[in-house]
Every structure is written in C-alpha cells, then in structure tokens.
C-alpha cells in the first residue's frame, strides 16, 4: 500500500464511521454531544481562517454565530422565510459586519486585536440586550428569541429527532474542512500565511496583506454565521447572554489552540479532545463538587500549552507519520 492509498483509506473509513454513527448510537444524548462536537469543530474551522491562517487571535467570534442566528430567526418568525435562506442571509450580514470591523482592527498586533474583538463582541451583546425592536425587526432584548415547534419539516429546518441535525452539521463540517483544505493549498492560503507571519515581506512579494486578511475575515464570518442558524434551529431558543457571551468565543479559540492553530485537522482534534472532556467532567463531577470540572478543564488547558504549545495536532501527526512509514511499502511514493 502506498502512502497516498493509506491516507485515502483512512479518510474513507473515517467518513464511513462518521456517516454510520447514528445507526450505532440510539441515545439522543450521545448524539447531541456529538452534534455539538461537530458544531464546535465547524466553528473552530471557520475561526481558523482568520485565527489560524491569517495569524491573528479573534476572541469574539460568538458575535457572528449570534448574527447568523438572529438574522435567520427574525426572517423566519416575522417574514416566514425558510431558515435555509435565512442562513445565507445571515452569512452575508456577518461577512459585511466582519469586514467593517476587520478593516481598522486587522492591522493591529495580536494582543490588541484580541482585545478589540472582545470589546466588539461584548459591546454588541450589550446593545442587543438593550434593543427590543431594531427598526422593523423584533430582537426581544435580553429575553432572546424562541422558534415555535413545527414538527418535522425540512423547509422549516426543524426535526423531532437528532439524526437530521447530525447529518446536516456533519456535512457542514465536511464542507468547511474541504474548504479550509483547499484554501490552505491555494494562493489565498499561502498569501494569508505569509501576511500573518511577516506582513512587510509579504507586501514586497506582491501580497496586499490587508485585503487578504479582510477576505479571510469575510469568509470566516460568513461560515461562522451559518453555524449560528444551525444552532438556533437545533435549540429552537437562544438569548444574547448565552449566545453572544464570551464563553462561546473563548471555547472556539481554546479548541483551535489545543488542536493546533492553522492546521486543517486542528479544529477536529481540538474538539475531540475538549468537548467530551467538557461534557463528561460536567456530567460526572459537577454534582460532587461544583467547579471541579472547570478546574480540571483549566488545568488541562495549561498542561497542553506547557507541553505542546503548537497544539495536539503536531505530536499526533508525528505519530501518524511514523505509523504510516511502518505500514506503507517503502519506495511506493516519495513522501
């Protein structure tokens, strides 16, 4: 077996397992946990376009999840527009806002950019909490929006069982992974990587760094907002403090950093590492000693950063390389 064949086989096996999983798991709880895992992996992949490839550290990305959720839900509740269309609308709104906010801030150094995004996210949350009606749109202030139960309906993006949600987010995740894979291998990816590393040098090689960063921001915000609609339809309820708060923003960044910033697999590996940890420590420890699960979460975060500052993807891919070398036929293909 050559290396390429091995990679492909593994990818196929992975995909088969992912697509077959709901047949094996009949517990909606575990399915929900996996759905949220995919949801986080998706968000982190979208984040990665800016936070990984373009080399800045956005710490307020939940805002764009919120914009997606609000846009599609308002359109659905007030104008009866299918959330599928609202999803795209939300993506466009988020991309536009991302560009407006990114234009002045993307020039900044990392710490400043991080603080800016936090302030923007918090500012927007506070504003939405103050606004009942935004022009003709009912945002309902701090109470948030509830999507009424419509039963199983593909057009209304609502299902009584978990499987459809599972497949929707799985496909979204696959698409976003393919997209980031494609970007990372294209001119845009190279230009983003160069601009994030040494902007001056990149500019001298013909890269309009600011524009490429804005492009990354627009793509990232667009994709992030799509997940916002998904979230709204999955939960059928959201409110500003929960959706736009810093917890979600921070978790996205953590997953990326623990998985490996700027790598394709990083978001998935990060989500695989953190989400179950997050869920199971909460499930099994929170009734024993409130807070203990978050202490453990924090400690793991510190330990990973101490021993694998580039994230878990780096050591895992080293292990994989070694294994692959042992398995594949030598000389089959130059690796």
């Amino acid at each position, binding site marked *: 077996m050559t290396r390429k064949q091995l990679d492909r086989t593994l990818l196929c096996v992975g995909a088969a397992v992912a697509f077959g999983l709901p047949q094996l798991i009949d517990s909606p709880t575990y399915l*929900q946990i996996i759905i949220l895992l995919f949801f986080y992996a998706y968000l982190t992949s979208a984040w990665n376009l800016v936070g990984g490839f373009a080399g800045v550290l956005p710490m307020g990305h939940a805002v764009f999840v919120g914009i997606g959720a609000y846009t599609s839900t308002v359109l659905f509740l007030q104008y009866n527009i299918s959330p599928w269309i609202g999803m795209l609308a939300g993506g466009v709104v988020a991309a536009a806002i991302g560009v407006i906010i990114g234009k002045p801030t993307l020039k900044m150094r990392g710490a400043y950019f991080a603080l800016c995004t936090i302030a923007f996210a918090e500012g927007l949350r506070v504003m939405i909490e103050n606004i009942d009606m935004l022009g003709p749109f009912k945002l309902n202030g*701090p109470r948030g929006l509830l999507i009424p139960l419509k039963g199983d309906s593909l057009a209304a993006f609502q299902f009584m069982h978990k499987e459809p949600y599972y497949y929707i987010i799985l496909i979204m995740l696959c698409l976003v992974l393919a997209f980031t894979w494609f970007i990372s291998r294209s001119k845009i990816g190279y230009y983003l990587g160069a601009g994030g590393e040494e902007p001056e040098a990149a500019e001298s090689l013909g890269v309009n760094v600011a524009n490429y960063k804005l492009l990354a921001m627009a793509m990232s915000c667009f994709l992030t907002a799509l997940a916002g609609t998904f979230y709204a339809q999955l939960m059928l309820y959201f409110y500003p403090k*929960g959706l736009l708060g810093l917890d979600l923003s921070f978790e996205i960044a953590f997953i990326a950093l623990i998985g490996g910033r700027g790598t394709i697999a990083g978001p998935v590996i990060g989500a695989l590492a953190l989400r179950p940890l997050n869920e199971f420590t*909460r499930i*099994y420890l929170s*009734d024993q000693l409130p807070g203990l699960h978050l202490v453990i979460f924090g400690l793991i975060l510190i330990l990973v950063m101490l021993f694998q500052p580039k994230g878990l993807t780096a050591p895992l891919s080293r292990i994989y390389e070694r294994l692959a070398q042992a398995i594949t036929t030598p000389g089959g293909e130059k690796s």
Partner: protein
Amino acid sequence: MKKASTLKRLSIGLGAAALTVCLASFAFAAEKTVKIGNVEPLSGPSASVGIQGKQAREMAVEEINAAGGIKSLGGAKLELVYADSKSDPTVGVTETERLINTEKVHIMTGCWNSAVTYPATQVAERYGVPFVVPVAVRDTITERGFKYVFRIAAKDSWWVRDQFRFLKDMQEEFKTGFKTIAFIFENGDWGTGFAEKWRTLAKEAGLQIVLDEPYPSTASDLTPVVTKMKTANPDIVLLVSNAADAILLTNTMAELKVKPKVVLASGGGHADPKFLENVGKSALGMFDEVEWNTDVNKPNAKEANAKFKAKNGYDLAGESVDAYVATYVIADALERAASTDPKKVRDALAATNLTTGPGMLVSYDGVLFDENGQNKNAGIVIVQVAEMNGKLDRVTVWPKAARRAGYTPVFPMK
C-alpha cells in the same frame, strides 16, 4: 444518596455482573428507586441559588425516604440526579436530554433560570417526561399548551398584579395617596419581563412613571442609578434585583440618603438569605414580595426552616421552599400514580390537589394545577423588613389575613 449513585456507577464501570445480580435481588425487595433529574445552575453566575435549591431538595428527599419512600411503589426511594446548567440554555438542553435518555430519570425538575427552563421543558415535552418547575417565573413557560410541564410558583404576571394590589390595599388602609412611581430592574429576562407589565398596571393605577431604569446586574457601581432616583424623587420604587445588585442598590440608597415613601422589591436578590446580613439597617422598612417567609403561619414551616438552617447556615428562601414543595408534589404524584410510567405520573401530577403534609409549608392553601400546568393557588406574600427585639426580621404584612399578629406595618416607610 450520593454514595449510592457513585457505587452504582462504579459497579457499572467494573462491569461486575455478579454484583449487579446481587444488587438487583436486593433492589427487588426494598432498593427500588425513582430517579428525579434536576438541572440547576451549580456553577457560574447563579450558582448560589442553584445550590440552595439543591440543598432544599436533598432535605425533602431525605425526609421522604426516611418516612418510607413511595409506599405504593413498595417503599421506593427517591434519588436525585443532578446536572449543572451553568445558567446556559444550551447546557440546560443537553443535560435535560442526557438525564432523560441516559440516566433514564422518571421525572424532571429545575432549572431556576427562565432562560434555561424554557427550552429544557420543551425537551421534556418532546420526550413525554413530566417536568415540575418550582420557580422560573416567565409566563410563557406554562402557556405553550404543553402536557408534561407543571409549575409550582406564581408566574410573573401574578407577581406584578399582586404588587399593585398590595400598593392599593395599603394606601387605602393607611389613608395615603401616591402619585409617582419609579421602576429599577435588572436588565435580564426577569427584570424586563416585570417592567413591561408594570408599565401598563401603573398607568391603570393612575401613577406617573418618573423613572424607568434597567441596569446591568453585573454593574460594579449603582450610584448613577441611585443618583437618578434621587433626582426623580418618586413616591414608590419598584425593584427587581439579583443577589449582588440588591445588596449594592440598598447600600447605595442608604449612602446617598434616598428615601422614597415605599420601596417594594420582587424577591430574588432581596429575598436571598444573606441579604439582610449584608445590608443591615439600610434595608429597614423596605417591602419585598416573596413566595414564602419564615413567619408564615403553617405547620412545619418553623421546623423545616430550623432544620435547613442548622444544616446550611441560612434560612430557607422562596426559591428553596418552592424546590422543597416541588419534591413533595412529585412524591405525592408518584404515590397516587403507583407507577413510574411517565404518562401515569403525568396524569397524577395533573390531578394533584396537595393541601397537607410536611411539604405544605407554603403561604397558600394547596397545589392545584390548571389545564396548562400552572399552580392555580400559587400565592405571594409581601414582607417588610423591621427591627424586632433588636434583630432585623422579615415580617409578613400582606395579604392582610397573613399579617403577623401584632405587627403594624410602617407605611409609608420612614
């Protein structure tokens, strides 16, 4: 309780079939349990209330189990299975699904935050698992035509209605007339919900609204709000506050010597067991609307409170009493259903008419659900903070029938 569940988990973890068989044979005789899923904020901003609710439920479950469990189920014991919502609806929904599907709880209760309870009850409804909501006051929780959702406490429109009834009654009784009113409320789900209804009721009562002020409940300084209150100089101030901001607001008002004729709070932070300890005499004279008060004239109220205080170091509060009552309501329904089948439990809950027993330490006569699952009887009392025998106390003043014997309210407050 906790030990039992850990042991059980351990046995599963080891996969010791023999042990399971052994336990099962015991279980048949006496160890049958009914699992109650309980989603509460055990960490995060509302953890303090969540933990109080947990303690109250534990006390009720201990009492029920000590008294022989659910007799119609062969003395089955109640077992509480907790999940932490962190006050986050996403987590609340996920945890509700987990408790129902994985922990196989027979009945659900929680979640304190309206924002969490709202979607979590929707989950329970979808799976057809009864959900007893002790407190989460948002009206709409029991206004969606759900079959499996029951609420013990009053909903917020009732709270607001009673606040204005109280104001009217007291003005008549003490022959005063007020003209202006101010609303100060936390800018969350709860506060904004109250304020919306205040506006209409104030208009109906012919009161002029001189200040309508939401504030962020995580504010580090409420002096600006109190300064505004001082400028507006209202006769009546209505408040909705969480724990920390209630303390801050009361202290700041004392500091800036703002003294409206009536200050009426809406429970929550003002009813927190630690509130009086933290504000001292600054709270003297203020009124507070609560589900429950320690001086309520009911059998078991004093005993239960003493027991709770001995254990946890503070008094029972409205929220914890509701949690306590809810546990007794659940036990009562199980007893009558003589089954853990969710449909039967649901029907038994719907037919609840609980008027006696240790759980009924509430101010009202009994728990009786309407067709939406709202407790029709849920009542509210209004207390005044007063100095009794040199100690600050919360004295029930309204409804007049429930007023503590021998106490004359100070109205307007001085």
